[in-house]
């Protein structure tokens, strides 16, 4: 007897509200429909009512996890309109914060993923590693979330003593190499819940237009840091990570190896931090008439911003397309034919961020 079953919007697996309505036949999922929009805040409209300084504070709150990505991408768009080139040191600092943010986001995900498959000891280990990243971010920016580092024309805060953060990076690489990666890839409990689960083939990945680690785990080698290098990625030599399998395990592995690459990027950026000013402009920004589209690689994939200016005190339009917005619908393709019990880890494997989807 087929039956339908609503999961959410108060979600057993995630802290944010979204709903998956599944049609089941016994234990097996026939089809699923995803609904989002339970925490819509109208940030795009609000952004048209705030001046160019205030709007950065607002945009930073699009997402609680990748707050820096959004503020940074918005600033890059405004800089493109105004024709401002940020100083080399500012570009390096933005890269460091962006990669630290990716580390903290991926570690958060790995912890939540471990929790979803009932692996609490792994969750604890992952989150204790994540504290290293959070402490580093706090020491640099003053805050654990919403770092407030970006301004139009550069960054607000310096990294005066880059060498200070290297020991934390070493401890992090050690923790990843000795505990997190081996446990996810060798532990029979973890493998039983992830291998072959929630497959998304390469063709389906193209069809559903997924981005970020979800696409790279299905063999699509797309990454804005490589395809259209921005900030200091070209100078630091970025290499993307892909896996052909397209299952939950592949997504775990892609994120784990990306963390290793992020640590390398951060270390190199810290060691090669160029001297120079932090901002290209002084005082409050003035943005001339114009428009710009900017893509950056957020932890969950490509973030896209369209910003238009009519030369006034506020932006004329800010269009935000977040990576989760395109990744979440692909859950429908992943769960079809899977047991109901795997629904929560399959959803979690997309790393859905409802905050930015409902921005």
């Amino acid at each position, binding site marked *: 007897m087929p039956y339908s079953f609503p999961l959410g919007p108060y979600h057993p697996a995630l802290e944010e509200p979204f709903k998956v309505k599944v049609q089941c036949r016994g234990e097996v999922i026939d089809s699923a429909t995803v609904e989002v929009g339970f925490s819509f805040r109208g940030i795009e409209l609000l952004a048209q009512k705030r*001046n160019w*300084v*205030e*709007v950065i*504070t607002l945009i930073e709150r699009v997402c609680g996890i990748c707050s820096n990505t959004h503020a940074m991408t918005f600033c890059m768009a405004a800089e493109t309109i105004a024709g401002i080139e940020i100083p080399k040191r500012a570009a390096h600092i933005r890269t460091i914060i962006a990669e630290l943010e990716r580390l903290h986001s991926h570690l958060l995900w790995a912890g939540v993923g471990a929790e979803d498959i009932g692996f609490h000891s792994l969750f604890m*280990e992952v989150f204790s590693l994540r504290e290293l990243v959070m402490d580093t971010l706090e*020491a640099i920016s*003053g805050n654990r979330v919403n770092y407030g580092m970006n301004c139009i024309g550069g960054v607000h805060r310096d990294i005066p003593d880059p060498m200070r953060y290297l020991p934390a990076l070493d401890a992090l690489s050690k923790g990843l190499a000795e505990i997190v990666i081996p446990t996810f890839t060798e532990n029979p409990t973890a493998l039983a819940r992830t291998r072959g689960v929630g497959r998304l083939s390469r063709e389906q990945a193209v069809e559903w237009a997924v981005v970020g680690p979800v696409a790279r785990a299905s063999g699509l080698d797309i990454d804005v840091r490589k395809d259209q290098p921005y900030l200091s990625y070209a100078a630091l030599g970025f290499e993307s990570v892909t896996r052909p399998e397209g299952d939950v395990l592949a997504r775990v592995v892609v994120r784990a190896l990306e963390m290793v690459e992020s640590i390398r990027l951060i270390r190199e950026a810290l060691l090669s931090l160029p001297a120079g000013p932090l901002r290209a402009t002084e005082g*409050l920004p003035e943005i001339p008439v114009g428009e710009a589209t900017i893509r950056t690689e957020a932890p969950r994939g490509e973030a896209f911003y369209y910003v238009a200016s009519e030369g006034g005190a506020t932006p004329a339009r800010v269009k935000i397309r977040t990576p989760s917005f395109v990744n979440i619908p692909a859950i429908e393709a992943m769960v079809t034919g899977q047991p109901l019990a795997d629904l929560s880890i399959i959803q979690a494997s997309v790393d859905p961020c409802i905050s930015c989807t409902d921005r």
Partner: protein
Amino acid sequence: MAMLKTILGNLLRPSRTRAPADMPDVPTVYRGALAHDAARCTACGTCAFVCAPKAISFTQDPGVSVSWHFFIGQCSFCGLCAQNCPTQAISLDAEVPTGMNSAAGDGLRLESIVRLQPCTRCGAAHVPLPDAAIAALWGVEEAERGYCPDCRRWAASARLRSAFIPAAAEEVHHER
């Protein structure tokens, strides 16, 4: 096996939950409790301009004072007010901010009253500039210290004119 080894290793190690003494130092860039120094404030409004959640506002008692208001329930501790204040009247210190309730409810409210002063030349009430700002902008010309912005402009143009036509400047001086 990696997990088993880790768990056994953890049994032999002390707890990883941090005691207050092991907490990382409060970073120097931490943005905590907000303080405002009325003696430095010129009521220019820059802080309110950059404050996205509108935690800062002004009220006026015309001719007497301008009040600077801050409500902690709306503050997001972005630090932009402190960074953009031209006279460094605002600071976000290392102390933890006091309790924050809902954005609409009660919580810490600060009010600083910036008293207006009569201009020593024309008598118009104006916000006095901090001494340091006066010294930097106009030098320490004693007579001009208590001038309102209009009279300062007048004095500046009079100085400029007297540099070219000394007599004309004299005349203007008597006219007023």
